[in-house]
């Protein structure tokens, strides 16, 4: 019975109707009826603000006294730990990092979008404030005969003592570590405050040293240590949804009421 119905002309007509509806759906969006009398052109401009963030560094004795606001933005490969900055003006002057000695290595984050409103008022929509988090990797590499870097998985990143400034040591610190993401190589820190445009966070590291015990193990000879930092920023408007979407479900930052506009 059903077979006959489907073979009937009614089924064919039915299919034609479905096809026509489909074309209609696709076509309606593309085709517009043009006005019969063209009007004057009206122009409109929409400026979409952008969110921006950068890492900053103050390293060695010479830069340690520089303020957070004047810290150098650092970006890209080789930007961190410049020898001439890290090693200058130390009590032991050396052309290479002295094992066991502590050096000042102060890393921070800045919202590099300039504040758009000069009279200090809060335009709400236009100024992109952000929440930030930082992921820091530290590891050893070896340079092979072709000059390529090969990660040295047999060497222990714990000998690279990069000291993080978090609420573990200092309860007043706004940086918190995500312990579930912690490995000997990776540390993830979240900043518990909004970073306004042109503003910097508190620093998240303060010193760097290579543990003296490294010299007891021949495998470390001629090895190179690397520190890598990645900063992520997300808008504060609808902060918890934004964070959920960008960073997944975690409870590291509690969003205040003013971010839920």
């Amino acid at each position: 019975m059903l077979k006959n119905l489907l073979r009937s002309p009614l089924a064919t007509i039915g299919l034609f109707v479905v096809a026509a509806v489909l074309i209609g759906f696709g076509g309606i969006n593309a085709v517009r009826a043009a006005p019969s009398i063209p009007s004057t052109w009206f122009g409109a401009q929409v400026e979409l603000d952008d969110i921006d963030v950068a890492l900053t560094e103050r390293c060695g004795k010479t830069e340690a006294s520089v303020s957070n606001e004047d810290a150098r933005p650092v970006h890209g490969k080789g930007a961190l730990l410049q020898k001439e900055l890290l090693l200058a003006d130390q009590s032991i002057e050396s052309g290479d990092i002295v094992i066991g000695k502590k050096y000042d290595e102060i890393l921070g984050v800045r919202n590099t979008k300039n504040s758009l409103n000069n009279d200090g008022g809060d335009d709400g929509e236009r100024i992109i404030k952000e929440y930030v988090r930082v992921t820091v990797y530290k590891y050893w590499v070896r340079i092979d005969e072709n000059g390529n870097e090969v990660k040295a998985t047999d060497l222990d990143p714990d000998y690279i003592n990069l000291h993080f400034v978090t609420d573990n040591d200092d309860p007043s610190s706004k940086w918190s570590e995500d312990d579930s993401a912690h490995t000997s190589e990776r540390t993830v820190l979240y900043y518990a405050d909004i970073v306004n445009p042109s503003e910097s966070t508190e620093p998240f590291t303060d010193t760097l040293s290579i543990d003296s015990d490294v010299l007891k193990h021949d495998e470390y000879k001629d090895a190179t240590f690397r520190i890598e930092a990645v900063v992520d920023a997300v808008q504060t408007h609808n902060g918890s949804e934004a964070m959920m979407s960008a960073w997944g479900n975690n409870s590291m930052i509690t969003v205040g009421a003013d971010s839920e506009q």
Partner: protein
Amino acid sequence: MKNLKLRLAAPALAVALGLGLTAAPALAYFTASDEANGGMVIKWPDTDITDDFDGGKKTAVIYNDEDSVPMYIRAKFFIPNNITASSIAGEGWVEGANGWYEYRDGDTWTIVMPGEHTQPIVAQIKFPFEASEVGSSPTSTTGDEGGETGGTSITKIEANGTEYNVVVVYEALPVTFEADGETPAAPVWNS
């Protein structure tokens, strides 16, 4: 039966596709990201000794290679019983325990930086007999793993037909620091 299912399936899929075309475009939140990295190679201890025997004086100088790390140094002479050293001295060297001569200024150990060397330390050899023939073969130097933290230099002296060995041994330790990471700590030697 199969034919029937297929004939139903096609329009059903077509309708679903049509509904799909009307879906709203996806939305995204503003995000930004940046990264930076850096690092450097670590240097390893590497030291060496040169010494000279001339006119009864054995002079030793210990070098810290320029690709090395800051080091503390001490040295010791081994001289056969039947010949004696009338004096062992050098500027910057202080006699310590167990016959070791330590490269320090008072209680503060001198840091020998990469590319630098110690002041010479000289042992004045005295023969108790009239040495009719005093010659020496070139000193030979051995070290551990390329002289990282120590080495030996031997001078063979021939006097009155007998061979004597005058040996100087040195030890070098990388400079370590107190808990503050700034103040150099005193070396802890093995013996």
